[in-house]
């Protein structure tokens, strides 16, 4: 019998698992996909918001401001890059100026620290590449950027290091109330648990409806992005927003923690909870809108485009509460933006809820908040490079040329807790294939390493989803070539 079953291994699920792993609890994360951070967590703006735009008194307002200040510590503990670079909301006309003034006042009420209203001159000084037409901006120095999937994989790893369990490829099919808790039926297992925490992202309404009539609905709201090459990385220094619209925070331009530039998203409500395709209309919209902020964006340096789904709740706010109908079942639903920013505070709050449900929780004496440091070969000094290769020659073999990633780093990413199992899983953890050649050179090598380290055939290695096979078979054996030769001969005659 588990104490807690968390459904969904995105940023909220993994964060809650990590925070619960501080206590003497048996915790399991159930994830339908073959890796953690596979849904919304892998495709979003990667921003830690300052938090000025939510409605005063809402969950979004409360958790964003609390969550924001917690990032430095957790990212330091888990060796995840986080940069507090600040953000600007730029105004193009008087109406926008009023909007940012309102945002500023709203932020003060919510408790966002250190905000400033700045004029065009100061904007230009901070961000010389932005368009001249900008009249002023709301500057929020506490905004930051983080690698969301890097954080989620690190949280999962740390949770597992501290005794939590992770069941991948376990899609929850049915939940029954049982004595002292619940019985969860997945496609592979039956899990008995006292408490359930529903972190199922766009599927949270679906999961909740397994225990009672769900009073909320989650609408997938798709957003599309461009990701530019590192050589475009200095076009902006901060997260640059336009004024928010009804559908969201609008199109932003921001550096990423890895030195790329991210531009997006648009917003479109969909029916399909798996529809992460990009469209030419969506991408054109992002491009045309972003150009209003900065006409110098070098879109010819694009290295990839992608789309993600926000989990938009019908209630308009984060749903974080124990169900009134189903005791011991906590919904953590509708965690759209600022979900990533709020996740540390949400996790802390959920732990308090579990504590109150359980009466009290005993802390583990041996909880380790740190994960083993990742070796980032490219960032080492010459002496450190020499030393690490001497210790483990696999650090002397570069697999990804664009990002300078060694075999040693890839092997390590595979063998850690909650480690990489797919080509994209490796890419999200240590970045081979995330550079400008997009895996053209390193793809075959990464597959080879994955196959070797997991004792699999190359052909069994997948890109991402369970059936995303890259290779479909072997080329012909010699004997089969006879036919081919004849074919060639006859076609030459013709």
């Amino acid at each position, binding site marked *: 019998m588990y104490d807690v079953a968390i459904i969904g291994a995105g940023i909220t699920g993994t964060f809650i698992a990590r925070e619960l792993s501080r206590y003497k609890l048996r915790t399991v994360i159930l994830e339908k996909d073959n890796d953690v951070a596979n849904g919304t967590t892998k495709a979003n703006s990667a921003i830690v918001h300052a938090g000025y735009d939510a409605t005063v008194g809402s969950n979004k307002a409360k958790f964003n401001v609390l969550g924001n200040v917690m990032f430095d510590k957790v990212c330091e503990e888990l060796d995840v890059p986080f940069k507090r670079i600040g953000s600007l909301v730029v105004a193009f006309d008087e109406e926008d100026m009023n909007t940012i003034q309102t945002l500023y006042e709203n932020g003060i009420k919510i408790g966002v620290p250190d905000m400033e209203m700045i004029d065009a001159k100061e904007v230009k000084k901070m961000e010389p590449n932005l368009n001249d037409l900008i009249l002023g901006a709301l500057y929020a120095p506490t905004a930051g950027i983080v690698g969301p999937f890097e954080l989620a994989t690190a949280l999962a790893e740390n949770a597992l290091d501290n005794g939590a369990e992770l069941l991948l490829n376990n899609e929850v099919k049915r939940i029954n109330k049982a004595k002292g808790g619940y019985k969860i039926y997945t496609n592979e297992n039956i899990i008995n648990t006292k408490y359930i925490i529903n972190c199922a992202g766009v599927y949270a309404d679906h999961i909740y409806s397994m225990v009672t009539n769900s009073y909320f609905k989650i609408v997938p709201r798709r957003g599309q992005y461009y990701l530019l090459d590192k050589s475009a990385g200095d076009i902006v220094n901060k997260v640059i927003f336009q004024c928010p619209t009804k559908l969201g925070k609008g199109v932003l331009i921001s550096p990423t923690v890895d030195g790329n530039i991210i531009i997006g998203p648009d917003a479109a409500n969909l029916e399909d909870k798996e529809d992460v395709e*990009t469209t030419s209309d969506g991408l054109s919209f992002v491009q045309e809108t972003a150009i209003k902020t900065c006409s110098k964006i070098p879109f010819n340096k694009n290295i990839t485009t992608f789309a993600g789904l926000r989990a938009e709740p019908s209630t308009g706010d984060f749903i974080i509460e124990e169900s009134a109908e189903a005791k011991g079942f906590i919904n953590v639903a509708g965690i759209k933006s600022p979900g990533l920013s709020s996740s540390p505070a949400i996790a802390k709050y959920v732990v308090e809820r579990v504590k109150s449900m359980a009466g009290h929780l005993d802390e583990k004496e041996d909880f380790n908040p740190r994960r083993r440091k990742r070796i980032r070969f490219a960032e080492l000094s010459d002496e450190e*490079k020499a030393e690490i290769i001497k210790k483990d020659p696999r650090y002397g073999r570069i697999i990804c040329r664009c990002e300078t990633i060694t075999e040693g780093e890839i092997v390590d990413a595979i063998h850690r807790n909650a480690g990489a199992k797919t080509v994209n899983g490796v890419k999200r953890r240590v970045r081979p294939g995330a550079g400008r050649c997009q895996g053209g050179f390193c793809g075959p090598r990464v597959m080879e390493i994955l196959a070797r380290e997991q004792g699999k055939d190359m052909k069994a290695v997948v890109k991402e989803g369970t059936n995303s096979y890259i290779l479909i078979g072997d080329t012909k054996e010699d004997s089969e070539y006879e036919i081919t030769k004849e074919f060639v001969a006859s076609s030459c005659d013709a």
Partner: protein
Amino acid sequence: MLNYDIVVIGGGPAGLAAAIEAKKNDAKRILVIDRDRELGGILQQCIHNGFGLHVFEEELTGPEYAQRFINELKEMDIEYKLDTMVLDISKNRELSAINTKDGFMKIKAKAIILAMGCRERTRGAIAIPGTRPAGVFTAGTAQRYMNMEGYMVGKKVVILGSGDIGLIMARRLTLEGAKVLAVAELMSFSGGLTRNIVQCLDDYNIPLLLNHTVTQIKGRDRVTSVVITEVDGKKKPIQGTEKEYECDTLLLSVGLIPENELSKSVHVKLSPVTSGPVVNESMETTIKGIFACGNVVHVHDLVDWVTKESQKAGKSAAKFIKNQLKDSIDVVKTFANDGISYIVPHVIRTDNLENSLDLLMRVKDVYKDAKLMVKANGKIIKEINKRHMAPGEMERINIPSSIFKEKNIREISVAIVKEGE
């Protein structure tokens, strides 16, 4: 610190030819560094024939062509390190490099030759909308899987882009039993060699759809179909012309980009047109003692021309370390005028010329019965009639050195003059 006369970065056709030629010109300690597991570069995966017609006057396969140089390199006892990556280069010609055997190395060279080749443009670079399933490959990566590793990449294939590797792969996949449904090309002409269109598409009844592009990729795990749409004169998709092709694979042959990450680390000046280093008559970059050749400078159509260009770079590097390259003030600049996208070399120091100099260039469009007009200081010095020119085929113009030495020439330009103009 390891010390060498010349370090060649890249052991493909460019690096091999440069190293051999440098040795022939009395450079003693030469080291070739390659990041792959064997010498020969991309030639090793080009198992089709058609290489060497100009250099050896016979038709060889890629590996055969490479092997001739590899053998020569070994006979000459030129040192090489495989599975080795150069991490950075400094202005005073020091390199750091790593591999699993030697570990971290600092290497000092009297001259460096950049021969890193090029890489393929990707789906991201052209931002094809749709899902992101498995089954989308650049043509060269698919070629590596098939020809080096022995794996099939798909059964029903659409190819976007009619660059040479795409054309070659259309035939290769067909021979391996896959069905190639179509090759779509955005432009109104193919970027590949005419002989490849005939031998790889026409001979196998594979349709070449000019003025078409892929506008959507479908499929969640693996590609299930792609949508091909006709484009107008401005290369914008024409609504209503969409056609869906059921397939499991999309191959991209949408261009090659010289790979100059290392060149950037030492601030070699790059040309915005070629994406390769700006070079002079000796294939020396804007940094003294650092030379470059082959596809790292500009993407060639035939390996034979890579060899010739690289031999020049190797010979020049050997001269450089003997202080025989002259830093003359008599500099001639080359200008790509109407219809020409670029000319290599970019500058010419006339003192270093031998009997003649080849100007290598690409044209911007397809031209029939047009002239290449070469001017020196604005005066016509040469006109070459051409029945057919296309961006897929490199043009070479040989200029006798005597021309430079006369009349204080400051600039050479090449333009295309169409019939009747």
